[in-house]
């Protein structure tokens, strides 16, 4: 049947992409970080400045579903954040901000960003950013450090 034959062809070609031999294909690269059950190392007491950016990048993983960070990259569910630190709130061209944020009069200093991230809905009532609060202060400052490291 035509329908199934199209599908079967598609299936074969899809699988064919992955296989370079008749055997089940091996990974190109496999990094074993840890075995299950092995304890992860404890958090270090003091994180040097460089680590804050790295920690911030890691924490920012929760934000990438909505926010892009490459300069010039299109905004998504949230505005592109390249160069956001020091910027007037609501100023990215290709993003449709809520009226609340557009008219907030905020400039995104590290302090204002920190306050916003702690509770976006309280800082800017009516903001589209209904989710994404970061309750941990250290994580917040790491995220701000990471945002500050993003080039314009």
């Amino acid at each position, binding site marked *: *049947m035509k329908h199934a034959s199209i599908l079967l062809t598609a299936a074969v070609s899809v699988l064919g992409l*992955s296989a370079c031999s008749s055997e089940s294909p091996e990974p190109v690269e496999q990094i074993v970080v840890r075995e299950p059950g092995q304890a992860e190392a404890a958090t270090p007491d003091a994180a040097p400045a460089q680590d804050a950016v790295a920690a911030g990048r890691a924490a920012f993983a929760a934000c990438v579903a909505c926010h892009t960070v490459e300069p010039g990259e299109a905004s998504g569910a949230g505005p592109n954040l390249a160069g956001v630190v020091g910027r007037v709130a609501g100023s990215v061209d290709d993003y449709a901000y809520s009226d609340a944020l557009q008219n907030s009069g905020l400039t995104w200093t590290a302090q204002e960003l920190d306050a916003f991230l702690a509770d976006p809905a309280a800082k800017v009532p009516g903001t589209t950013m209904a989710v994404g609060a970061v309750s941990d202060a250290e994580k917040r400052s790491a995220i701000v450090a990471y945002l500050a490291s993003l080039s314009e």
Partner: protein
Amino acid sequence: MSDIADARPPRSKAAKWTRRGFIGAGTLVGGALIVGVAIRSGNPVGKLKPIVAGGEGEALINSWVKIDANNLVTAIVPHCEMGQGANSTIAQMLADELDVDWENVRVMDAPADGNYVSHHAARMFVGPGTLPDRPNQVGFMEPTYDGLFTQLGKLAGAYITGGSSSVRSTGQNGMRIAGAAAREMLVAAAAKAWGVAASEISTENATLTHAGSGKSEPYSAFAAAAAEQELPRAPKIKQVSEYRLMGTPAPRKDIPLKVDGTAIFGIDGGPEGDELRYAAIKAPPVVGSSVASMDASTARGMAGVLQILNMGDFVAVVADSYWQAQQALNTIKTTYSKTDIDDLDSEQMFANYSAALDEAGESGGNSKADVGDATAAFQSAATKIDAEYRVPFLAHATMEPMNCTAWVRDGKCDIWTSTQVPLMSRDGAAEGAGVSADDVTMHSVFLGGGFGRRLTPEYTNQAARLAKATGYPIKMIWSREEDTAQDFYRPADISRFQGGLDENGKLVSWNNVHCSDDEPAEAPLVEFYDIPNVSIRGAEVEPPLRLGAWRSVAHSQHGFFVESFVDELAHEAGQDPVEFRRSLLKNSPRHLAVLEGVAKMANWGSDLPEGYGRGIAIARSFNSIVAEVAEVDMTGGMPRVAKMYCCVDAGFAMNPDGLTAQMESGIVYGLTAALYDEITIKNGAVEQSNFHDYHMMRMDDAPEIAVHIINGAPDNIGGAGEPGLPPAAAALTNAIFAASGERIRELPVAKHFA
């Protein structure tokens, strides 16, 4: 849902092979009767795999009904349940023929393993015309198939769920026969035991009764003996007037599990114990590309991460939790290999499609219909109308994203995944796990939506490969972003029409050329309309995305194209759209009845409030005829569908509530796309990612929907899952035209309103 791997029937005693006697029966351990479809090995057509250890060249496939010692009847359904209610409805049909009350029926998915179901047996093993009182030969995706039993074998044997076919094929031509045969064999067994004529025995609610002597026993008492009986050559199937369960809104068996959180979907399934690990993956955004480099330096330091893998065609993080895996994956920087389409965007793609249509012109391309001389008739027509319509790629966006849980060990593989093609997925798993297909166990689950997306095996293959590489049982879940980026899309299409009207406003010529293949082939055809000159052709194009079957497949775009153009022709002819179609449908009485039905429901022609308009569209797909009227409110910034009227003739509604729900469902699915959705391409990759940019219809913009059912052909039943969709878009745009005078020829509607 449980597997019945331990319930393979022993050697079938009652199976006979003739072109007519294709039913086999046997007993399970414990005396349960099992009835299904038998094949005889040595069948010269196609390669046959033995399903069950059988003697004398007999073998049983697809056991469809089992009666156990407690008189509980289990319908074993070789189709998945993805919301269309097929499992329950098929069981309802079987239970009716078997004379069992609905309360005593259970439903179970047929196991999909190599020892039980063979897709190699899907070649012709039964011939058409087996049942003398079945005059209609209905093909799956007709006219691509011929012969209803070939269809039956392909579907049931190949274990595919799709094409709106579970009820009208497997149910109508398989399960009912199995149920009727089982009943007759039970009667025969009782007749022998009681020493009375079979004709004196009645059956009701799983009980055999001989009125004369007052003898009465449950089915279970004779299940084992029934298997020894002569197979009925043509079991008596009920006439419509005898239906007790068929045609009633029997409540679905799966719904209670879906309100208390106990229903297990693919994403929920997995092995017992706490060894399960989780994977998040990302594949190259551009088709044909592979992973060139992977920088996982941040990911390595993130909590919960166990392994990071570059599989060549995707990158994966395996962690103690899905969320941890996805967080880590989000920090990985990947570069991809170059492709020919790295600079392609939607605008350029449509320009390429347009050029292909230019080249096909008025008579080139692959011919799909050629009646009379459409070009000449157009030239001499009193009024000439031409139009071009355009629709985008569309994503399936099932609520449950693609996922698969795989466990590979000791040469065996277990798979839990939502799939419409368990056998194809099984093969994908086998390839990924490096085991034979027979060593893969597919665990059946509910699907969180299918809509044609789950007809592909690639995500099962991915999970199996990860499980093999890491040694862990792996639950791999695609993020919504991955799901949107890696779909098998409904094709984008451009369709050009030329229509000629004579001086009386009668349609005399129809010329259509559009892009790409059609599946089903009948989708762009207009045979039910009385048009003397018709030319329908397809021009070949190269889509930059992988294509798949999207609910109603090519009917989804051709329903819009055809019914929009018919509407434009009607307005050019100065005629009411219903009246115009009425005269064109004079040779299609079932279409006419559906058209009249919906016009009446919608009170066509009556006054509407200021700023409102009505539009009508009709389409036949998957052997069901559906007409819809949309009532659209143009008073706001964006058109709003206030009401949707739907009249459907699906031959016979086996479960009218189920059919109604599927019409509602197809309408909302179709309107969502028509109003809001497009998948666009930039630099070869899909731009959309989640529900903020691939918009869903919601409670506050969904229309009120009214459905009226006509049972126009009880022996020729049509599908339910898809046919509600094709008329929706044109009903909407035709209504917008009626309300505002604006003719929308390019979907989605939203792009024309700021």
